[in-house]
């Protein structure tokens, strides 16, 4: 009888403990997440930009998403500027060393998209300082 009582009390403590443990875990998981600007609609386009990837909406966009973003982030495209030849060489390099598949008939459309939308501009030997956010300096 006494053993049964002790057992019941222990069980109760265990259950209450578990309840709080789960509650705490749920809360900490929740607070780990931040607002992330990602659309749940994978086809959404806003101001000429494909929201999910940040790629410019233009002819060939969906081929680029299909071929280029299964291994790496689209950010590797959007932060780069290369000539048609440069993009072609990059594809060749990925095929030779990074397991990129043969793009077949899609290659021309992919290269054209990249060369047209992510072409270099001449920035000279040193650009002016830009995007300066002015603020009052107080020591």
């Amino acid at each position, binding site marked *: 009888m006494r053993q049964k009582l002790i057992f019941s009390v222990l069980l109760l403590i265990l259950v209450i403990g578990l309840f709080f443990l789960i509650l705490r875990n749920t809360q900490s998981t929740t607070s780990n997440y*931040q607002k*992330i600007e*990602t*659309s*749940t609609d994978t086809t959404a386009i806003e101001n000429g930009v494909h929201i999910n990837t940040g790629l410019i909406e233009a002819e060939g966009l969906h081929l680029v998403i299909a071929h280029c973003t299964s291994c790496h982030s689209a*950010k590797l495209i959007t932060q*780069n500027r290369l000539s048609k030849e440069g993009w072609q060489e990059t594809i060749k390099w990925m095929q030779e060393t990074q397991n990129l598949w043969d793009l077949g008939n899609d290659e021309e459309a992919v290269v054209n998209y990249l060369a047209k939308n992510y072409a270099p501009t001449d920035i000279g030997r*040193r650009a002016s*300082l830009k995007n*300066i956010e002015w603020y009052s300096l107080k020591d």
Partner: protein
Amino acid sequence: MSTITALVGAEIVFGHLLPEGYTPLALQEKDPFNLFKKDKEMRVLNDRPWNMEAQAHLLDDDITPNEFMFIRNNGFIPKNIDVNTWNLTIKGESVKEEKTYSLAALKSKFKQYTYQLTLECGGNGRSEFNPPAKGNQWTIGAISCANWTGIRLRDILKDVGIKDDAIYIGYHSADTHLTGDKSKAPISRGVPISKALQDETILAFKMNGEDIPIAHGYPLRLVAGGWPASASGKWITSISIRNKVHDGAKMKGSSYRVPCKPVAPGTKVKDEDMCIIESMPIKSLITYPKTGALIKQGEKLTIRGHAWAGELEVSEVEYSIDYGSTWTSCNLKKASNRLAWQHFSATVTLPSKGYFEVWARATDSNGKSQPMLLPGWNPKGYLNNACHRIAIKVV
């Protein structure tokens, strides 16, 4: 549903059609700032793989804390790391006998040292090259100088025994290739044996006195300060002692190599005409104030920052407020140890109202200074050590 909406931070259109138990894409990827304990002002360059850089004003600390340390990954960070089963194997053509150590054995068997070591990505500053070079477009924030604690690679190599024909070492890591191909290493670089045997070349367990953060190589990182940070392999599982230049991933082609002889911008360079980058060039960064400061006329401006010179020492740092026409010396401190960055400071008087740029220029112990324009163009945009500039307005 309302919980999920709150988490996403927006109303989920067609939310009632979401299958039960389905996590919206927005929540599948954890926030990198929380994930890696980075400051919110750090800039994400790439999210697959993770690459993140600091801004100049974030690097004001003498010793870089984790929250401001850049992340450069070539593949996926290893998962399910078990320190109890983690081993390091020393192998290759030039070891007398292959030998494996547990992490615990490495920690107890060899003496531990702490050094403050400068780690700069070879491509730091790539974004300024013209014509542009491909890769992550680093601006100025792929540089750190933290305290690293570990054992000398030299001590382990002595314990293993290496042959006289050893000329290079190459590291092998636990990260995985973006394609998931297990036969491919995302990166496997190394250094000549002379660099491997330096006092400061260590296998580190700790960064700034704590376990190395996962993004920076937990539980074991090779640290070879003053060289492109890619030589400091993360998540090390083995090291090959080679009788030739290590030929692992990203040791060939245009990776971490520059033309042996200078070329005109945009030139195609053959593989055999490319040379591996070794010591990083002289460079400096103004970490205070943040660019864009408005000051009142008559107020003095204090500037400060760090300078580093690869294998060498920094002998002088100067500043200019007139686009390099005249230069004035800054106060410069000695390094806390070899291969650590050095701190400089100065009090600047600006002569009138208007727009000014403060430029910093450091000189190394061999007399080489930073260029004011971009240095020699190279196919992958490495080694941009052009002087740092901040904008100031006197109002």
